[in-house]
C-alpha cells in the first residue's frame, strides 16, 4: 500500500486548522434590526408611530381589554361571566389577585405604547416640517389616552379622596435606551397622571389635523378630553370639548344604531373601516390586531369564546320601540333556553370603537345639565338626538339621577347604559364618578375596584408601591 505523505497535504491540513476567523462571528439578525439603526429617517419615525398604534391594539389594551375588564368589575347583576379564565373570574368576583395576568397585560402593553410614543417624540427632528405637528400630535394623543386609562384603572377615581396624594402611575417621557438608575420610576399622583394626560391630549388637539385617515385626529383628542373632564367633574370643559367634536361636523350618527356594529359577513367576518360616527377606533383586520370584546362577548359561531352571558332581563332598560334592544339576543333568537348575549361585537375583525359621536352627545348633555349650561344644545335635545336615531320615544325631561335601569327612565346615566353598554368600561367608570353604591358587592371607593400594580413589576422595581388592599397582612 502506498503511503500518503505529502508535505503539501500537510500544509493544507494546517491551513484548514487555523482558517477559522473572526468575521464568522459577526452575524446580524434578519427579521429585526439593531436599535441604533431603527430610527434614522422620517419614514422610520412614522413606522415607529404606526408601531405605537399596533401596541394600542393589543388585546389587554384598546383591542378591548381596557373596556371589558372594568365592565366585568361592575356588572355583577347584568352579566354572568361563564369563562374559565381565572383572571377574569377574579374581576367579576371583585377579588383580583396581584398576579392577575390580564391586569399585568394591560400594564405592560400600556407602557409599550408609551415607550413607542416616546421614541417618536424624541426623534421629531427627523420628521419633515410639514409632518412634524401631526406626528407629535398623534404620539401625544396615544400617550395621553393611555395615561388617562392607566390613571382610571390603577389609581383611585378622581373624586375618591385627594387626587393630589392618591398614587397614580409612573410617568415616563423618554424612550428606553439602556437600563440605568433612571429606569426605576416611582408612581406619580393621580392628579399628576391626569395632568400629563391633559397636557398630551391638549397639545395633540392643537397639533393634529382635522382628518387623518383612520388615525387619530384633532377631534379624537378633543373627544377623549371630553371623557376625561367628565370623569374629573370638570363639566364646563367637558361640554366644550364635546361640543368641539359635535360642532365640527366631521362626524355624524349612523342612521340606524346597528350600523355602528357592522358585521356584513356574518360568520365570515370582513373588516369595515370606521363608520361616520367613529371619532377614534382601533383598526382590526385579519392580519393585525385583536378584538377582545369579540373574544369575550361573541359566541363561538362568531369566533368568540362566549364567556360573558348577558342576563335576559337586561333589555328591560329599553322601551318597546328602542332598536338598541335588538343588539341583545339569544344565540338562537327563537329559543330562549339558549344563551343571551350582547351582539355588538360579533365581527371578529371589526374595529374597536374607542370613542364615538353618540357618547359626545351624552357627555355634552350630562355636562351641560350638571353645569346648568346649554353649550351647543340643551341636555334634553342631545339625549333625544340619540334616542331618535334609535327609534326610541323622545323623553320629555332628563336628569342625572342614579341609574335605575328602568325602561325609558329620564336619567342621562341610564341613557348612557342604553347607548354605550359594554363598549367602554362605563359601568365601572360611571359608577365611580357618580359614587354609586354598591358597585356589585362593594362601595364605589372600595380598594377592590382598583387594579393592583402587577406583582412582577413590584418585584422588578423597588420604587413601586402597591395599592391598598393588595398586600399580604
Amino acid at each position, binding site marked *: 500500500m502506498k503511503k500518503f505523505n505529502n508535505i503539501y497535504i500537510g500544509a493544507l491540513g494546517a491551513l484548514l486548522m487555523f482558517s477559522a476567523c473572526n468575521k464568522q462571528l459577526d452575524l446580524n439578525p434578519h427579521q429585526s434590526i439593531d436599535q441604533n439603526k431603527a430610527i434614522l429617517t422620517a419614514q422610520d419615525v412614522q413606522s415607529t408611530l404606526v408601531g405605537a398604534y399596533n401596541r394600542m391594539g393589543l388585546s389587554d389594551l384598546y383591542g378591548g381589554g381596557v373596556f371589558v375588564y372594568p365592565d366585568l368589575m361592575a356588572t355583577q347583576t347584568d352579566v354572568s361571566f361563564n369563562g374559565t379564565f381565572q383572571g377574569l373570574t377574579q374581576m367579576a368576583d371583585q377579588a383580583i389577585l396581584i398576579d392577575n395576568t390580564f391586569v399585568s397585560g394591560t400594564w405592560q402593553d400600556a407602557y409599550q405604547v408609551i415607550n413607542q410614543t416616546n421614541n417618536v417624540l424624541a426623534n421629531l427632528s427627523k420628521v419633515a416640517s410639514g409632518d412634524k405637528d401631526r406626528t407629535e400630535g398623534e404620539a401625544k394623543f396615544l400617550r395621553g389616552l393611555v395615561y388617562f386609562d392607566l390613571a382610571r384603572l390603577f389609581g383611585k377615581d378622581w373624586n375618591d379622596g385627594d387626587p393630589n396624594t392618591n398614587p397614580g402611575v409612573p410617568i415616563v417621557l423618554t424612550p428606553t435606551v439602556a437600563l440605568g438608575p433612571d429606569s426605576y420610576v416611582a408612581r406619580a399622583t393621580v392628579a399628576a397622571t391626569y395632568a400629563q394626560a391633559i397636557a398630551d391630549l391638549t397639545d395633540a388637539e392643537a397639533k393634529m389635523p382635522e382628518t387623518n385617515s383612520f388615525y387619530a385626529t384633532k377631534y379624537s383628542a378633543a373627544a377623549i378630553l371630553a371623557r376625561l373632564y367628565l370623569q374629573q367633574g370638570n363639566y364646563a370643559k367637558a361640554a366644550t370639548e364635546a361640543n368641539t367634536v359635535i360642532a365640527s361636523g366631521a362626524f355624524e350618527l349612523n342612521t340606524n344604531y346597528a350600523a355602528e356594529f357592522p358585521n356584513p359577513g356574518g360568520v365570515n367576518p370582513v373588516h369595515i373601516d370606521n363608520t361616520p360616527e367613529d371619532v377614534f377606533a382601533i383598526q382590526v383586520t385579519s392580519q393585525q390586531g385583536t378584538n377582545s370584546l369579540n373574544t369575550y362577548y361573541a359566541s363561538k359561531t362568531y369566533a368568540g369564546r362566549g364567556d360573558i352571558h348577558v342576563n335576559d332581563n337586561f333589555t328591560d332598560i329599553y322601551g318597546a320601540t328602542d332598536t338598541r334592544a335588538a343588539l341583545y339576543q339569544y344565540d338562537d333568537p327563537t329559543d330562549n333556553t339558549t344563551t343571551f348575549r350582547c351582539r355588538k361585537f360579533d365581527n371578529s375583525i371589526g374595529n374597536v370603537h374607542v370613542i364615538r359621536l353618540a357618547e359626545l352627545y351624552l357627555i355634552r348633555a350630562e355636562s351641560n345639565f350638571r353645569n346648568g349650561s346649554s353649550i351647543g344644545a340643551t341636555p334634553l335635545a342631545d339625549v333625544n338626538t340619540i334616542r331618535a336615531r334609535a327609534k326610541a320615544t323622545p323623553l320629555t325631561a332628563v336628569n342625572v339621577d342614579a341609574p335605575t335601569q328602568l325602561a325609558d327612565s329620564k336619567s342621562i346615566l341610564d341613557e348612557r347604559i342604553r347607548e354605550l353598554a359594554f363598549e367602554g368600561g362605563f359601568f365601572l367608570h360611571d359608577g365611580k364618578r357618580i359614587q354609586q353604591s354598591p358597585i356589585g358587592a362593594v362601595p364605589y371607593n372600595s380598594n377592590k375596584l382598583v387594579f393592583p400594580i402587577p406583582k412582577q413589576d413590584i418585584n422588578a422595581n423597588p420604587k413601586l408601591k402597591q395599592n391598598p388592599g393588595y398586600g399580604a*397582612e
Partner: protein
Amino acid sequence: MKKNLLSFFLLFFCFSLAYGQSRAIKGKVTDQKDGSPLPGVTVTTKGAAPAGTQTDLNGLYSLTVPAGTKTLVFKYIGYKESDLPITGNTLDAQLETDPKQLTEVVVVGYGTQKRGSLTGSIASVSGKDVAETPVTTFEQALQGKAAGVNIQAQGGKLGQGITISIRGQSSISAGTQPLVVIDGIIVNQTDLSSNGATSNPLADINFNDIESYQILKDAAATAIYGARASNGVVLITTKKGKTGNAKINFNAQFGSSAPSRHRQFLNSDQWLKIEQRAVVGAATQDVLNGYFDTMADALAYENDDSYFTFLAAGNSKWNQTNTDWEKQAFQSAPQQQYDLNVSGGSDKTTYFIGMQALNQTGILKGNKFQRYSGRVNIDTKVFSNLDVGMNLNFTHSYNQRLSNDDQFSTPLQIVALSPITPVIDPRTGLISGTPPGDHDGSYPLYYNALINVKNAYYHTNVYRTLGNVFANWDIVKHLTFRSEFGIDQTNQNEDSYFNSLTAADTGTPNGFGENTNTSIVHYTVNNFITYKNIFSQDHSLDITGGTSYEYSNLLGNDVQGKQFPSDSYKKVASAALISGGSSTQSEYSFVSYFARANYAFKSKYLLSASVRDDASSRFGANNRYGVFPAASVGWMMSQESFLKNWQSLSELKLRASYGLTGNAEIGDYSSLGLFTSAGYNGLAGQRFTQLANPNLKWEKTAQLDLGVDFGFFNNRFSGTFDYYKKNTRDLLLNVNIPETMGIAFQTQNLGKLYNRGFELTLASDNFVGKFKWNTSFNVSYNLNKVTYTNGQIIDDGADLNRVIEGQEIGVFYGHEFAGADPKNGDALYYLNNIQADGTRNRATTNDPNKATEVPLGNPTPRYTGGITNTFNYMGFDLSFTFYGAFGNKIYNAAGQYMSSSASNGLDNQTLDQLNYWNKPGDITQVPEPRQFYANGTDPSSRYLSSGSYVRLKTVTLGYTFSPDLLKKVKIDKVRIFMNAYNLFLITKYKGWDPEVNADFQATNINLSNDFYSAPQPRTITFGLNVGL
C-alpha cells in the same frame, strides 16, 4: 457483565476469515479460563512490515507471515494482549481476561481513551442494551440506564419534547439539554415545532444504529466542548462494519400500546349532584353580596336546569346519558418496526448499511409517528496511512401531531365535557358539537376534540440528513491528523388543515390551512492532531489539539389561508383568503480552539488537562471569547504494590477533576437591542422589542468531581461512585426590569446556582456459567439551589413554579391551602406571615391576597435510579429495568377546572371532589361548590401532590435458538422476543402519570405541571431477530 460484553461482540462483530493464503501459520485462540474459542481476535506479526488477520467463529486463524517473523501478537478486547514466539506452523493461544473496564475503549471528545486511563466521569451505555426498546427515541430508551441522567417525557404524545438533565439543571433561562454529538459532529437540537408544544429533534434518529452512548458528566470530560458543555455531553457512536464476511441482520417487532393509567371522573348522577349543589352555593353568595334579596330570587337566577337539558342534547332526562369522556380520548395503538442491516468489509474497506421502518400509533386519538431511516457508514484505506470515510444517516419522519395540552382540541381536554352529553348527538347522528347540530357554537360545554379526529390534521414531515466525511492521516509514527466535515440538515414541513366543521374551535368558518417550512443547515468542521506515545515504558502521553468551526442557518417560511371552497380542498392554494405569511432567518456560529493532554506514569498516576477557547456570534461585542480549562488526576491504587496482593481486588481508582465549562444556549441575537416590525391596518410599523446588552456572555460552570472506581473478583462486581458540585455563575438570565420601560426583561449575566450530588453505579455478575444473572444498579441524588438572583423572583408563566434565592429552580411557591372553612365552606389559606417570634402565622384567611406565599415543594426529583436484572439460561434471556424518581411534587394546573368543587365552570370533576363541604361542621379539603365563584380555585398547594414513583420501565423476554440447530439452515442467529414497556407503576400521584410536564408551558422553570397531559403508553411487542 463480561459475558454480556462478549456476546455483544459475538453478535455484532462475528465474521469468518476468508483471506488465508497457502503458506500459513495456523492456530486456535481460546479463552484461558474455559477453553472456549475466541472469534474476532486480531492476530498480527510483530515486525517492520506487519501482516494481520482475525480469528473466525471457531477461534481459528491462518496467517501468512513474512520471512524472519518471530513473534505473533494476539489482541482481543477484554483480554490481555499476548505475544507468542513462532515455533512451527501451528501456534495456539490462550488469552487471559483483562478487567474489562480497564481496556474498553471509550469515546471521548475528539478522540478515544481506554477506560482504565480515564480521569473524568463518563457513563457508558451499550447500544445493544437499549436497542429494540419499543419507544420512539433513544432518550426514552436510556431512562434508568445511567446515573446522574434524568430523562423526563412531557407526556404520552409521540415524538414530543423530552427533557434530559445531566447532574441537575444548571441554567434558568438558557438551554439545559446536553450537547449531543454523533460520530464527532454536534447535532442540531433546535425545536422547530410551531404548535405551541415542543417536538423532539432527536426523534429523527434510529437508535438501533447506535453502537454506544457515552455520557460525559464532569468538567474533565466535557470541558473540551467549552461554551457548550455545561449541561453535559452525550457522545453517540454509530455502528461500523468489521473486516470479514457480510453479516445480515433482520429485526421485526409488532405490538400495541394502551394508556398506562386512567383517571376517574364523575358519572352523570354524581356530576348533576355537585353542579346542583354549586347552584345553591352560588345563590347563597349572591344573597350575601346583596345581588338578590331572597334565596328564591337568587336560585331562580343561578338555576342551570335549562342548561342541563341543553348539555344533554335536549334530553330533559339528564342522566339518561352517562358518557365516560376520558375513555373516548384514547384509541387502540398498534405499532410495528423493521430493521435490516448489512455489515462487513475487506482489509481495506469496512461498511455498515442499515435501514429502518417504524410505524407507531399513539394512544391518543389521531396521534401517529412513522420513521424511515437509512444509514451508510463506510471507512476505506486510501493509503496505508490514510483512511477516509463517511457516516451518513438520512431519515424521513412523519408525525401526525395533536394540538398542545392547552387547546380544547387536544383529545384529553374532553374530560371537561359533561357526562350527560352523549358522544353522538341523537338529533343529528353526528359527534356532539359537529355542525350543523351546533347552531350557536356553545354545545357541548366546550369544543369537542373528537371532531378534530376526522376533520383536522397537523402533519409534520421531517427530512433529515446527518452525516460527515472524515480523513484520518497517520502523519508519522504516533502523530495522527483527523479532519471531519459534518452536515446536519433538517427540512421540516408542517402542514395543517382544519375544515369547516371545526369552526367552533378555530373561529374560522370555511376552513383554515397553514403550511410551515423550516430548514436548518448546521455545519461542523473539526481539524485536530493527536500525538500518542509511550516513553521509556512507563510514561504514556496523549496530546490532542485542534480547531472547530460551527455554523447554523435556519430559514423558515409560513403561509396561512382561510375560506376554502369546500371541505375537500385542503391546501392553502385553494384558500380564497391568504390570511398570513412570513419568512424568517436566524444564524449562529462558533469558532473554537481546543487542546488536551493526558499523561500516565506506569498506568498508575494519571494526569489530564484540557482547554478550549470558544467564540460565538451570540455573545455581546464586548465579550466574544471565553476560555474553558479543566484538569484532572487519577490514581490507580490497585496497581500499587501494597494492594497488589489483595487478589480479589481487580480495580481501585481514585479520580478528581475540576474545570470550567460554559453555556451558550441563548437566542441567536440576545445581546443586541432590537426593533421588529409591527404593522397596523396593513401599514408598516416597527416597535422596540429587545434591550441591548453588549456585555452579554456565556454562563460559567465550575465543576468539582471526586470519584472512585472499584472492581472485585476480576471485575465481576464493580462500581463507581462520584461526588460532584457544579457552581454556575453569570447565569444568562432574563432579568425582569421595570415594565415602565416598555419591555419586561433583559438578558443579563446575573445570578448563581449550584447542583450538588452523588452518583453510585454498581454492576454485578451474580451468576456466571450456564445460568447467568447480572444486575446493574444506579442511583443518583442531586440538590439544586439558586443562590443569587439579585432578590428577583422569576416567573415563567406557570401557576406556581418560580425561581427564588435559596430554593431550587422552579420551586413551587405560592399560597398554602388550608381546606374548607368548617363554618361556611370558604376555601382557606394559611396566612404564613412571619411573626415577631420568627415562626409562621398558621392562622387562616379566605382572601388569598392576604396570605403570604411560601415554598410548597420541589418540582424535580431528588433521587432517581434504575435497576436492571438480566438472566440467561439455555438460550432464554430475560431482562427488566425498574426506574424510579423520588422526592418531587407535581402540580395539577388543570385542578382549577377539574378539581374545583364545581366552583369554576361546569367542567366535569375528578371523583375526589364529591367530598365537598356541604353543611356547617363538615371537615374537608374540598370547599363548598359555588358555581363561578372561584371558591378555592386559585393556584395553591391544593393542587400539589407527590410525584414519586417506581415504574417497571422495560421487560424483555427472548429465546435464541441454538446455533448448532441453525447451522444446518445456514443461519447464524434466530431470536424471538417480547418487549414490554411501562408494564406497571407504583405511585401516590393522583393524576394520569407522574412522568409529566404539560407540553405547552414546559420550560427550565415550569417543571412538573400536569395539564390534561397524556399518560405514558403501556406497550407490548413481539419480535423476531434473524442473523445471516
